[in-house]
């Protein structure tokens, strides 16, 4: 077994593992981390296939930029956005599974029957220009120069489109200090809200404060916890006397 084969089998198993984990994990954050894991494994494969530049770009662009962008959007959209388990189309899950299995079998059999028996390898091409980066630069800035230039237009359009889409127009005028103060003093709760963890067993931010009668005070929690139902109110607050 050559070194290339050893690298392939390790990274292949790990990347399929990560991809399956992405599909089956319930929470979107876990899915994002599984995809990042798969992408790092693919980067290692690129390195072993003689693509040092692409391997580095894979780590920087995909795991570094794209997946972190996904995580940021998950923070905006809410970590609670887990899947609903109700099927809107009847039998979609089963039909999807069957279709995926059939498609995978078709792809695998088609690829194995084409029969690339030997690989030429890139050491000759990479060596001729003095390295993978130099050889790739010759191609990108030579034969594919037009595609490269068009790419810049695509990137500018994408950046502009994202700014236009995500731009938040202010519909109401900004509140003045006097208005804010009036809202606060006349709004029914002039004092600060109770801080989390008061009189409870621990004082972490996800533990609601206990009222004198022992019930929990919902308004002591940050609003994000109220919507996600993250903290386990009961287990944190059971007073063991």
């Amino acid at each position, binding site marked *: 077994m050559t070194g290339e084969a050893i690298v392939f089998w390790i990274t292949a198993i790990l990347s399929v593992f990560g991809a399956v984990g*992405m*599909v089956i994990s319930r929470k979107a954050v876990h899915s994002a981390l599984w995809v990042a894991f798969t992408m790092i494994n693919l980067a290692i494969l690129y390195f072993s296939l003689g*693509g040092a530049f692409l391997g580095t770009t894979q780590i920087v662009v995909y795991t570094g930029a794209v997946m972190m*962008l996904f995580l940021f959007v998950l923070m905006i959209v809410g970590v609670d956005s887990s899947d609903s388990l109700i099927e809107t189309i009847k039998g979609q899950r089963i039909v*999807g599974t069957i279709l995926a299995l059939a498609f995978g079998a078709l792809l*695998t059999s088609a690829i194995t029957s084409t029969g690339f028996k*030997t690989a*030429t390898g890139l050491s000759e091409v990479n060596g001729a220009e003095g390295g993978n980066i130099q050889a790739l630069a010759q191609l990108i800035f030579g034969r594919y120069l037009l595609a490269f230039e068009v790419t810049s237009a695509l990137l500018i359009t994408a950046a502009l489109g994202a700014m236009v889409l995500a731009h938040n127009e202010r519909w109401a005028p900004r509140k003045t200090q006097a208005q804010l103060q009036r809202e606060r003093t006349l709004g029914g709760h002039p004092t600060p809200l109770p801080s989390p963890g008061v009189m409870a067993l621990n004082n972490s931010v996800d533990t609601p404060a206990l009222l004198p009668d022992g019930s929990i005070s919902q308004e002591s929690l940050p609003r994000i916890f109220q919507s996600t139902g993250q903290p386990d109110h009961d287990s944190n607050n059971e007073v063991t006397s």
Partner: protein
Amino acid sequence: MNPNNYLVLAGILFTIGAFGVLVRRNAIIVFMSVELMLNAANLAFVAASHITGTLDGQAAAFFVMVVAAAEVVVGLAIIVVIFRTRRSASIDEASLLKY
């Protein structure tokens, strides 16, 4: 080692990504599955470059990466806008045109 193994791995990863697109309901996870499919295509490009001994496959993979980055930016912006107006990231909720 038989270089077909790389292409088979790319096919398996692509299939898993397609399965995720078909089965999952969360728009962000569907989007991640699309990313996985793009990565599988990239792996096939790099493997083809390795098999044929030319660098054109790697140049193609480079362009796929650029297009994928642009696509992620716009797609995630659309998801954020839909979430702002509908307070939901489920792809089943966005069926306003149906009724």
